């Protein structure tokens, strides 16, 4: 019996809570892409940062100096399956590999330019000699194609930092050239973290059907990414129940992002100014990470699957049109069939909202443009997730080993801890209600259609509930 059929058979006999356990065990396991990190402290005493979907740049110590080597180059990057573009990055990826060092280290960073134009690297938020600041034309000559420059400076601060070009940066950043630069405090931390995540927020104008980001766009972006990935391709952030988790968020996009974590009140504990004194920590559930800013948030992980996303609702969508005619509340029945005499593929959507759009796109019977993504994607244990863009999950489990960053599957909810249906009668109960009902002369509350009579009268389309 196929697992699907087993589950359907099971659904007839098992209570919902038990079913969720079945689902948690059998649900699809998304293997996180990011490089594994040790999950234990280094000789210098810090817990290595884990870059979801990314990696950390290795270094060599020469004469007491940590030597790194960045290569700026054109790459092929996948935002999520079905959306690939020619981007620019470092060492084969966007974002470039995370550079990690410790306050007091001296670093020597070679930068080889394999781009078709000159570049430079600015070490965003890092205190260094002016001539190392990487502003082409101001503090240094350009690194021409084929050339290698070296930057060398001592790290006399700690915090979450970034690196990016300061030469034709409008183009080069729009193409994906950026990375995180983490400096751990030399004296350790007052509250050591068990899991330390680094996420770079960005936006992309990869117009549907194209294969190269468009640097000219200022507002109307197509993709909203964490570490240059969009949901559902963004790694889940995993933790063991009770671990202290830090998420370092840098924003090199052109929008501010109110980042929200479900299930916790996190503390905002730092930025590129370093880890703040505890007196400055503040409790939030949403923290705006402004353009060019960095914010560190920390929390103790409670068990469950918790959404972590930008709260700009359009930023948790994949490509979509803006300013198109609003179909909400529009009954297209009758006209839709006539339109199909000229446009056989036309299908009216959105009369009752866009909840069903993902079902159409996932089903594959509504093709989209080449090399793009549906605006809403992802499948969870309770159906379609209907998200995209800057959305992922913090998955907390009781039995995760240190260094295990693989996706643990769906959460196994204890009995009684899943919201459940108590009635399918819209007149259920006696809720207190105020205000005026929509619809001229409406006497009754709007009643949801639950009889399979859809927006264009597709009667008898099967039973969509009680799956």
């Amino acid at each position: 019996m196929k697992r699907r059929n087993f589950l359907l058979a099971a659904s007839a006999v098992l209570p919902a809570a038990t079913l969720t356990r079945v689902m948690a065990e059998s649900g699809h396991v998304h293997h996180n892409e990011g490089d594994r990190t040790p999950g234990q402290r280094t000789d210098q005493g810090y817990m290595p940062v884990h870059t979801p979907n990314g990696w950390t740049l290795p270094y060599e110590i020469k004469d007491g100096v940590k030597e790194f080597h960045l290569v700026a180059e054109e790459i092929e990057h996948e935002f999520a399956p079905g959306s690939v573009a020619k981007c620019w990055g470092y060492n084969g990826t966007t974002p470039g590999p995370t550079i990690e060092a410790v306050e007091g280290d001296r670093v020597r960073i070679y930068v080889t330019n394999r781009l078709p134009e000159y570049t430079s690297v600015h070490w965003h938020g890092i205190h260094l000699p002016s001539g190392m600041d990487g502003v082409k034309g101001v503090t240094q000559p350009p690194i021409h194609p084929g050339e290698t420059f070296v930057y060398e400076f001592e790290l006399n601060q700690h915090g979450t930092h970034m690196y990016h070009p300061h030469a034709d940066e409008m183009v080069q950043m729009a193409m994906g050239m950026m990375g995180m630069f983490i400096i751990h405090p030399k004296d350790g931390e007052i509250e050591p973290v068990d899991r330390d995540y680094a996420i770079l927020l960005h936006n992309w104008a990869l117009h549907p059907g194209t294969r190269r980001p468009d640097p000219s766009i200022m507002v109307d972006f197509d993709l909203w990414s964490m570490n240059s990935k969009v949901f559902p391709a963004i790694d889940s952030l995993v933790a063991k129940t009770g671990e202290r988790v830090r998420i370092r968020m840098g924003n090199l996009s052109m929008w501010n992002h109110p980042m929200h974590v479900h299930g916790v009140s996190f503390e905002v504990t730092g930025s590129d100014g370093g880890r703040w004194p505890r007196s400055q920590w503040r409790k939030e559930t949403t923290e705006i990470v402004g353009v060019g800013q960095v914010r560190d948030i920390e929390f103790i992980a409670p068990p469950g699957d918790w959404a972590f996303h930008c709260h700009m609702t359009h930023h948790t969508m994949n490509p979509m049109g803006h300013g198109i005619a609003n179909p909400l509340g529009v009954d297209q029945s009758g006209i839709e069939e006539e339109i199909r005499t000229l446009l056989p593929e036309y299908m009216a959507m959105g009369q009752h909202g866009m909840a069903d759009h993902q079902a159409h796109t996932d089903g594959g019977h509504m093709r989209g443009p080449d090399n793009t993504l549906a605006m809403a994607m992802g499948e969870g244990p309770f159906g379609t997730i209907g998200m995209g863009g800057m959305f992922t999950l913090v998955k907390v489990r009781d039995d995760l080993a240190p260094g295990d960053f693989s996706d643990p599957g769906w959460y196994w909810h204890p009995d009684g801890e899943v919201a459940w249906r108590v009635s399918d009668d819209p007149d259920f109960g006696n809720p207190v209600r105020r205000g005026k009902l929509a619809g001229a002369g409406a006497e009754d509350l709007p009643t949801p259609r639950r009889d399979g009579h859809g927006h264009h009268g597709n009667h008898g389309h099967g039973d969509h509930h009680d799956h």
Partner: protein
Amino acid sequence: MALPVLSVLFLAGCATTVPDLDRERLEGDLMAYGVTLSEEELPKPRGELELESAIHQALLRNPRMQAAYARLDLEAADVIEASQFANPSLSLSVLRPEGGGGNEYGIGLAWGISGWLLRSARIDIAESHWESTRLQLTEGMVALASDTERAWYEAVAARQQAQVQALETRAADLGLRLGQRFHEAGNITDLDKAHLRIRATESRLQLEEARRQERATRLYLAHLMGIPGEIEDWSVPATLPLPLADPDAPGALVDQALDGRLDLAALDKALDGMTEGVALVRRYRWLGDIEPGIEFERETDGTRLWGGGITFTLPLFNRNQSGVHRAEARLREGEARRDRLTDAIIADVHEQHYRLLHHRERFRMMREELLPAREIAMAGIQERVNYMFDDVFDLLEHKQEELRDWRRTVAELGDYWRARADLAYAVAGPLPGGPVGREGYFDIGQLEREPGQMHHHHDHGHDHEDHGEPHDHEHGDHTEHSGHGGHH
């Protein structure tokens, strides 16, 4: 003295018969043009009218043909007239002598023979003119057939364009009707709706014009077929044929035209007559009236006298200089007309040849490049609408533009066929490429589908989230989704 009498009697029997418009010869001349004559009895058209039937109707009923036949009869009368002799004149006289006595009687018979001397040449001239007119009649038939062919293609093109315009207007109307729904839902403004109304109304105006054009072309075709105003019982096909093979190079076509054009041949025949006329008038410029005669008289004393005589004019003052001058001038004018016609034919062949290639190439570009690009664009817009990058109004607007290009392509194909008809007329014969329709027809059937439901996998009016129950996560197994059945 008996000779004139015998001559009169003999010549009286030499009545020339009326020239006959030989049908077989006429059919042969027309066949060279690819035109066939129908049977003498032909019912009025009913049902779908093919091109050949339309031409038959025109050749049978069009008043132009009746007028041409009448002109030919006029020329035939001239031939008869040229063959006829002047009648002899009989003179009778009675003379009474004064003082009494018997009367004197006289009988004279005289006959002017100038006509007899000129008769053969005059018959030749008249027959040349008749032959010229016969050729003009044939050419007129060819011209009428060509006009009918052009009008038939115009009618087919107009019908096909009106069909596409109706679809174009449907797209605009659907946009307006959908806009009204959007407006009722509170989602678009009065301004938006006004724009949709403008678009729909403009399209309806175009449809009205397309229908007027369709009717006008049918009326004109009916007029050519000699059934003016009668357009209810017949129709033209709904689809234009695809272009045929290209004609030869213009040089060869010019040679073909100069060899075969009947209007040129008619003018040549007329010039033959004029040349003959000049020769005749020069040859007999000294010749006035010549009238030999015989006389019988009986004197008062009973004496009978027999004798003959001749009367003729002396060309002392009038030696028919004006006639010579007139005949020569007519000949020169005729030769100039021929040169003008030759030049016009050559220019026309070049122009129509280029026009044909021009429309063929434009049609090819539209059919092979523009319309496929439109199809790709429509598929792309549809995909964008599927993913909500664009909306249904964008979709309908693009559909309207696509249909507009289909209509332009039909119009271009119609222009091609009109140009081909004009070129065929210009070169005096059918063009290569085989029968019309050999390459198929420009079908527009795919532009419209039967109204029907798409295969929806879901009911759009319904939220498809589960109500507490989990889904299977095996993406890609959508077999249960077909046929609007349940998902399980």
